């Protein structure tokens, strides 16, 4: 039983963190908070991949002279290594978009942005009607 629980323990943690990230993305209205939530979600996915590559009793995949050494799986490491750097690039893009949104709308709260949009829409609609 104990072995079974520790065998899937890491997965549980990953899924819990993933759900905390998802909760932030769904429920928080601030766009900046949503980006942070996405970052948490992303990191939990990285942890999932690295967990797949782990071998109990293995070492980091850097070849030593000892021929009987067991190495953890390096393939997930490569995928995640590049994904982290791409992740920060996309985060920066999201932040740039948020800064532009704040400049155009004067707010980064979801509700306020949609309220401004609604007002704009009604103004345009009434202008057309008057014409």
């Amino acid at each position, binding site marked *: 039983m104990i072995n079974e629980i520790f065998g899937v323990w890491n997965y549980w943690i990953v899924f819990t963190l993933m759900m905390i990230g998802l909760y932030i993305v769904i429920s928080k209205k601030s766009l900046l908070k949503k980006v942070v939530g996405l970052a948490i979600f992303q990191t939990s996915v990285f942890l999932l991949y690295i967990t797949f590559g782990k071998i109990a009793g293995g070492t*980091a995949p*850097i070849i030593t002279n000892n021929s009987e050494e067991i190495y953890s799986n390096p393939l997930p490491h490569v995928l995640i*290594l*590049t994904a*982290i*750097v791409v992740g920060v*690039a996309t985060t*920066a893009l999201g*932040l*740039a978009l948020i*800064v532009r949104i704040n*400049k*155009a709308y004067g707010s980064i709260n979801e509700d306020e942005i949609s309220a401004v949009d609604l007002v704009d829409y009604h103004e345009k609609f009434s202008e057309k009607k008057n014409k």
Partner: protein
Amino acid sequence: MNNLILKVCTKVLFTPIILFGLYVQFHGDFGPGGGFQAGVIVAAAFILYAMVFGVDKCKIIMPTKLNFFLLVLGAFLYGFVGIVGLILGEPYLSYDLLGSTKQSGQHIGILLVEFGVGLTVCNVMICLFYSFANFKFGSNKND
């Protein structure tokens, strides 16, 4: 910012950070490290300089034009190494024929490719910081 301690510390730290970045870059074959990490570390040195001395001072040592030139050069270097392999008669991005033996060819190829990655990542990070630092908030609200 007019804090003497910060300025002196930045002056002292600037070179060792870049040196550490280069170590990570070229020691990536033998230990943890490589182009991605090295690029970020070198960029961190420039960002530290820009934060303490101001972006305008930082643009003297890393002008925007040089930044963009290196940004493109890194990606270009990566693609070019692949094309050299193509000309020598192997598949794209395989480095067997770059050196006298297979192993030395692979060494040269990996070194060049990692250097290209490092250049691009470093300059993209500096470019991101410059973009955020230069952004003027109140200039054109109707845009």
